[in-house]
């Protein structure tokens, strides 16, 4: 059901782009107003979400580690997996952000023969996530060629490596294939794995389909429905210097691609995609495992009104003595 809804949503977005820009010709709306608006929503929403998270106190010291904690000098401690220094946390975070360390540790328990429980590593999700995110990064960097002038050599180099196969003309990019394959895997995993399907929500399918839609329209634009890239770059340099000019004669597919990206940008801060910023704020990853050295004070702590035994006895001593209960202070 969720899948159906998100599919319908994507189709509506594509149709809006197609009808609005392609048939009605509302170029100003789709090429200038929508992107600016989406970027504005993205920036404000992103900061809002991060600040909201940063304002929430962490009541307990909860790093989840998988290594020996630092204690006595002759016990070897694991400084990355169970960091007790700031640099340890940085390296742990880097492993997490760049290589998805915790996903790599993903295990699965399953019943094979009757009464036999097997545990095994399950790295497919890790692989799919790695391929997807790294391809996405390369693709984003490659897009800089439309946004900056002059294009730095490193971007050209990346483009050259990515287009290594030099076939057809223009060459296909390796990352284009990889990202579509990874998205397909991540999508099929939600569809065909009953457990994952059970916990999948509209927002899960929607994000995958939206990014998939962007990738597919981009590939179509490069290889099948070509557009005038010179006009595209002129348009972007205009919009980036706040001198937007309504582009002329760029194919409709470009507007659909741009509109999908605008929707993604505007949707981003309200979605699970905020894990982009959230990963840095996860207390289970970014805290040092130093609970034996530093006392973690719950920021929520307020002075609790207590009634100690001494005070209790002072209050009821006479009555206690009367019924023969033992008391500590006899006077």
């Amino acid at each position, binding site marked *: 059901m969720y899948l159906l809804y998100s599919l319908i949503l994507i189709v509506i977005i594509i149709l809006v782009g197609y009808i609005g820009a392609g048939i009605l010709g509302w170029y100003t709306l789709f090429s200038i107003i929508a992107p600016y608006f989406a970027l504005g929503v993205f920036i404000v929403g992103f900061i809002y979400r991060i600040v909201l998270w940063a304002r929430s106190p962490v009541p307990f010291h909860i790093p989840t580690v998988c290594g020996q904690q630092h204690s006595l000098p002759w016990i070897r401690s694991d400084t990355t997996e169970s960091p007790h220094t700031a640099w340890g946390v940085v390296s742990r975070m880097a492993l997490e952000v760049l290589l998805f360390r915790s996903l790599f540790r993903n295990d699965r328990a399953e019943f094979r023969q009757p009464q036999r429980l097997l545990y095994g590593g399950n790295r497919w999700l890790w692989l799919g996530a790695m391929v997807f995110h790294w391809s996405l990064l390369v693709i984003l960097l490659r897009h800089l060629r439309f946004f900056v002038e002059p294009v730095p050599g490193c971007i050209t180099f990346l483009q050259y490596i990515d287009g290594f196969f030099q076939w057809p*003309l223009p060459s296909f990019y390796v990352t284009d294939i990889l990202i579509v394959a990874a998205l397909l895997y991540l999508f099929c995993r939600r569809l065909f794995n009953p457990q994952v399907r059970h916990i999948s929500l509209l927002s899960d399918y929607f994000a995958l389909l939206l990014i998939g839609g962007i990738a597919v329209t981009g590939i179509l634009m490069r290889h099948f429905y*070509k557009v*005038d890239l010179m006009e595209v770059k002129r348009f972007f340099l205009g919009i980036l210097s706040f001198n937007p000019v309504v582009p002329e004669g760029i194919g409709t597919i470009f507007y659909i691609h741009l509109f999908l990206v605008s929707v993604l940008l505007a949707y981003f801060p309200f979605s699970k995609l905020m894990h982009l910023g959230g990963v840095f704020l996860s207390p289970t990853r970014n805290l040092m495992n130093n609970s034996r050295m530093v006392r973690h004070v719950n920021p929520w702590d307020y002075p609790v009104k207590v009634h100690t035994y001494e005070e209790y006895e002072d209050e009821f001593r006479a009555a206690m003595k009367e019924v023969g209960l033992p008391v500590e202070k006899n006077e």
Partner: protein
Amino acid sequence: MFDKGKVIAGIVIFFVILLIPFWYNAVTGKAGYAPELKPGTDAKECVEKTSFMKEKHTELLTKWKEAVVRNGEREYRASNGKTYVMSLTGTCMGCHTNKEQFCDRCHNYTNVKPYCWDCHNVPKVVKK
């Protein structure tokens, strides 16, 4: 807000990186820049319609190459009825005599690096 310094530094770094396209062009002074193309010929029109050439000259060149190399045909009938010899150096560069002021300007702008010139000749520019 907890860890104010770190969080704000993180947000600032993120947006400085994300918004590279906004400040990079201002720094290099090329904001809103577009190169001027000089076809380098007195002819009025290209092999096909200009809009077609702008978008799809790669497709045309692929078609030409395959026709010549695989089928041995060397004549191309354009949609306006004229015939052209299918040759990158001879025909395209015959009209667009100055590669630097035409093909290269546009390709540098969109960061396209055709490798065709590893083999194919570029005619010398004749100073007029």
